[in-house]
């Protein structure tokens, strides 16, 4: 019974996560409801010893109409990762800011606010970060068409059209390659 | 020595210093390149740089004082040059050195920098002010060993005029002040390296830290003036140290020879040491060179 399995058992009866599994051998991932995220993270950080905060990322489930926030923390002694996930609504996307637990969460949240449009309540500095003076919708959302934006805003250099269309190759060629 | 020749001699004075100064800076960049095991620029590179800057078609100015800053810098440096005799025979290339003395030269050296600081002030770039502040704070450190050395010189030769000091050093190697008051010479060498901008002391114009300090906002023709005045300033300090400690020079060849030997010591220091912080520089200058100078002074008072 490695340390991760014991942890899995503890978490299951403490937080009753919807899904709790091992995507990789030293990584435990569990999906909890919005209100339990802070509890889970502080439990992992203070009680279990997952001191190091690895990253916060956001996954765009367009079909379900949900954003999924993924908090990854690392245990320096046991050398294992734990991943806390939660799903928030896509249209009215907002979540409480956890920057008081780790300072660097500020930057991650700011980037997700800019790229996905998730509003973090209580965030000290929600301002444009990489995309200065960006007027369009948050670009990392899957319903944002980059090529259309590029054709509209930028000019191509002449003489590029006839050589080849990289997009076409990506489609069928990629599937044939996979079949082989 | 008709007045016509005297006028030519006076007009040629700064241009000789400019050419030799620029040549030395070119040689310095080449030698430092060779130390880095690379070819390094051609020896005339600095002259080409200055000529390119003179031929720049545009230059921006923030106001009258900004425009006058580099002009006052060149004026101060050339005036100081005129009060230092290049040759010791009293006829050729003696500038106006018979009308001024060592203390006048010491203060004239700083006049150019202060005039420049006013131009930098109107430029309005905070980097410029930082560079000037660093320069003036560093000056507190550099000035003390230098002044102790010239006090020892004045006490030893009982005169403040540079020409008389040269005359008293005549007659062979052993009469040079370098060997008569060696400790004072060593103390003054530290401040010599500092004022030449050798690496541990090139604090005001550090490109990495304060974007070339006072020269930040100056471009085109103003930068040309500043580079040529830096070249003349380098040669000025070399001739001053040769006159004070190495017995002056009878003709131009000896002058170039002696100044080059002194210039090589600057190269050794520049290419070896990394840059000081301002307070480290002042602390260093008030500790070792000042103590050496004070010992020389005590020896002088006892003698």
């Amino acid at each position, binding site marked *: 019974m490695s340390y991760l399995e014991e942890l899995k058992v503890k978490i299951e009866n403490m937080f009753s996560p919807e899904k709790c599994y091992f995507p990789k051998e030293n990584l435990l991932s569990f999906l909890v409801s919005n209100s339990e995220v802070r509890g889970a993270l502080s439990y992992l950080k203070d009680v279990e010893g997952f001191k190091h905060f690895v990253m916060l990322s956001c996954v765009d489930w367009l079909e379900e109409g949900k954003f999924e926030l993924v908090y990854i923390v690392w245990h320096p002694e046991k050398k294992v990762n734990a991943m806390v996930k939660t799903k928030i609504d896509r249209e009215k996307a907002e979540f409480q800011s956890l920057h008081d637990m780790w300072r660097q969460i500020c930057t991650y949240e700011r980037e997700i606010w800019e790229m996905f449009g998730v509003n973090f309540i209580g965030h000290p500095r929600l301002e444009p970060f990489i*995309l200065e003076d960006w007027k369009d919708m948050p670009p990392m959302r899957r319903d944002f068409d980059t090529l259309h934006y590029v054709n509209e805003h930028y000019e*191509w250099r002449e003489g*590029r059209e006839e050589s080849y269309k990289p997009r076409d190759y990506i489609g069928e060629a990629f599937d044939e390659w996979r079949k082989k | 020595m008709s007045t016509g020749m005297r006028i030519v001699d006076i007009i040629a004075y700064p241009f000789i210093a400019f050419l030799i100064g620029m040549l030395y800076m070119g040689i310095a960049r080449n030698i430092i390149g060779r130390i880095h095991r690379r070819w390094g620029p051609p020896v005339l590179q600095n002259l080409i740089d200055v000529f390119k800057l003179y031929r*720049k078609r545009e230059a921006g*100015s923030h106001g009258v004082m900004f425009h006058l800053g580099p002009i006052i810098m060149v004026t101060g440096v050339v005036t100081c040059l005129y009060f230092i005799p290049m040759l010791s025979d009293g006829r050729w290339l003696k500038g106006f050195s018979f009308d001024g003395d060592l203390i006048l030269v010491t203060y004239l050296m700083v006049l150019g920098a202060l005039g420049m600081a006013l131009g930098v002030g109107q430029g309005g770039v905070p980097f410029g002010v930082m560079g000037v502040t660093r320069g003036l704070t560093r000056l507190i450190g550099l000035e003390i060993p230098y002044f102790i050395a010239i006090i020892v010189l004045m006490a030893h030769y009982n005169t403040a005029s540079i020409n008389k000091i040269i005359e008293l050093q005549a007659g062979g190697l052993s009469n040079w002040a370098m060997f008569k008051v060696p400790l004072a010479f060593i103390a003054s060498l530290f401040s010599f390296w500092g004022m030449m901008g050798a690496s541990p002391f090139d604090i005001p114009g550090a490109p990495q830290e304060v974007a070339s300090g006072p020269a930040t906002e100056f471009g085109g023709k103003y930068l040309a003036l500043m580079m040529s005045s830096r070249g003349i300033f380098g040669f000025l300090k070399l001739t001053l140290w040769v006159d004070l400690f190495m017995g002056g020079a009878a003709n131009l060849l000896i002058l170039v020879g002696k100044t080059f030997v002194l210039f090589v010591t600057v190269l050794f220091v520049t290419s070896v040491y990394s840059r000081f912080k301002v307070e480290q520089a002042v602390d260093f200058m008030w500790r070792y060179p000042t103590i050496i100078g004070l010992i020389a002074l005590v020896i002088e008072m006892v003698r």
Partner: protein
Amino acid sequence: MCTDNPGVWEYIANWARKHSIWVLAYGTGCGAIEMPPTMTSRYDAERFGLRGAATPRQADLLIISGYLATKTLKRVIRTYEQMYDPKYVLALGSCTINGGMYWDSYNTIKKLDLYIPVDVYVAGCMPRPEAIIEGIIALQKRIEEGRAEGAKKYRENIEWYKKNQREVFGDEMLPDYTWNFEGGI
């Protein structure tokens, strides 16, 4: 009397400009890492007269080393306008030519010479120091023939450049005191 007609005086000036180019130490993209090896011992661009300049006021050559996000483009244009007249631009990497790897990214520009006049392009997804030195030699040849007049080109069709820039920046344009001047010493 700065004569613009290509007399002997201008020829000598161009010779001097060719042999002493001051590069603005300003890495805008992934190519910035190629600059140190070009300047240090193995490739030593200093023997051609290249030297780092701390500020645009002192620089002649602006090296755009790689992709340009719109945010960086605004800074590049301000720097370019702060440089003085005989100024050149050396664009490294295919990202500056046609957008390169980021051809369909919403954030990078596709064609550099829409926004600032470019003298020499060096292709390659980050050209090695030898290619950069070849680019510099090509630039030197251009300077010697007097064709490196990017500043005049920028001044003459400033409206076209500003229109392109407005397309990308929208109404958040740079202040225009950097390029239109009244006289005065």
